[in-house]
């Protein structure tokens, strides 16, 4: 996965109406690239066919 450059970060910021400048810019790049790289490395068989879990329902509870 290619790392996002500071220019990429600036452009992404503009897309959500955020003006990101130094000293935040480089640090946002570090943080976002770490997250994206970590998520990109997740390759679990069957992941694509799993339904997402937006909230935790009380399944599997001790009372069931």
């Amino acid at each position: 996965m290619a790392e996002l450059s500071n220019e990429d970060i600036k452009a992404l910021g503009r897309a959500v109406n955020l003006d990101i400048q130094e000293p935040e810019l480089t640090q946002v790049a570090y943080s976002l690239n770490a997250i994206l790289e970590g998520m990109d490395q997740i390759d679990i068989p069957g992941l694509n066919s799993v339904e997402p879990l937006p909230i935790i329902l009380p399944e599997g509870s001790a009372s069931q």
Partner: protein
Amino acid sequence: MNQADIPFLAVTELAGLIEREEITPVDVVEAYLKRIDDVNPRLNAFITVLKEQALEEAASATSEISNGGYLGPLHGIPIGIKDQIHTRGIRTTDASKLREHFVPDADATVVANLKKAGAIVLGKLNMTEFAMGDPITSAFGITHNPWEIGRNPGTSSTGSGAATAACLCATSLGEDTGGSVRGPAANCGLAGIRPSWGRVSRFGVDGASWSFDTIGPISRTVEDCAITLHAIAGYDSSDPYTWNVPVPDYRRALTGDVRGMRVGIVKELMDPEVCGVTNDVRDSVLAAAKTLEGLGAMVSEVSLPLTTIAGVVMRTLTSTERVSLNPDWLRDRPADFHHNTRVAFMTGSLIPSQTYYKAQKARALVRRQVLEAFKEFDVLLQPTNPSPPGIMDLTQGVKSKEQAANALKESNFRGLYSLTGNPALSVCCGFTDGEQPLPLALQIAGRPFDEATVLNVAYAYEQAANITGTHGHPPF
């Protein structure tokens, strides 16, 4: 009893003395206020101390009790509340300049429940700004670890940990998104439980990340933790995501009997190569498992390979969700954030929707794996943190991508149960060697809504090991 000794008593001890009218709530509150005056300037655990209000409430409680109206073990007990939890007429700041003048017009349900049980709110506790995981971000100054000034007291409920450990309140409430009850409990040598998601109302709590947030007690003993949790747990029609699951009497569940209980040690979180756990933490958790085995529990190893992605998945979700508390602040008042919070919120604003969605899918698989393990085990054990409390880095900013990646990896330990919604408790399981011993912590997780078993296993261990009894209180 000497007034100066009162703050060092457990809730259970104080409650006995109050019930028998050997001391009054006024005696108790005065003793705590005196200790806050003496110690808080060095720790900075409180943002707001409610001196007059607490004394008035203590006088009312004293009168009620003398008239035969004793309510139970929290009646007249001084409690500290994290400053993310609304208190009627008392400012609630989230430790941020953006909220420094916010005064709620209603109590959070958890605060109302504690007041119904007779507890006295002593003050609002410091925290990290908007419950971020960085110890230096509070607009009201850094909170120190009472075991050693300069050490991280655990985030984000920094004041809840420091104040409870230093005996500035009898018990406290924290809020746990990615580990913010368990972290301070671990770093300050306390017991703290993140309840099941949906067990405790979040009404009147400023959200950090809505699908993760839970309110939990941080206390000096497991029994105090059980008493405090019992007062706040249960369905609340004001929070659509509390579940109508019966609340057992957690204190009664503390039998200390763990014979035949199936205890799994999570392999990946005990492996220095995989998750970076230090030898002293690892050894203390293994010794705790041995103690439980000696009490009749059946201990064995369990592999949860998806543990190794818990941190990044949890941070992807929480980083995105936390911005939604009020996205306009980042555009309208960016300078009012602490630099580190600003960077974190900006990062959360840029996470692509498909990455967030992938994290939600991974969350489902992680939860499935953990629930599967609970078909074989009653509780799971692992360290709360990979290492003892570290020295706080007072310089601002993210220094490198590697540093950011390491923080994600460290989140595997507490993030796992934040992701899955299981109850998880941290209890002190030893101290480091050295001139100033620092606490080490064991994390015990259970099936959803089975806080009773989690608390009982922790209680059995605490009673058998007597770790805190050996080391006493922090050097204050």
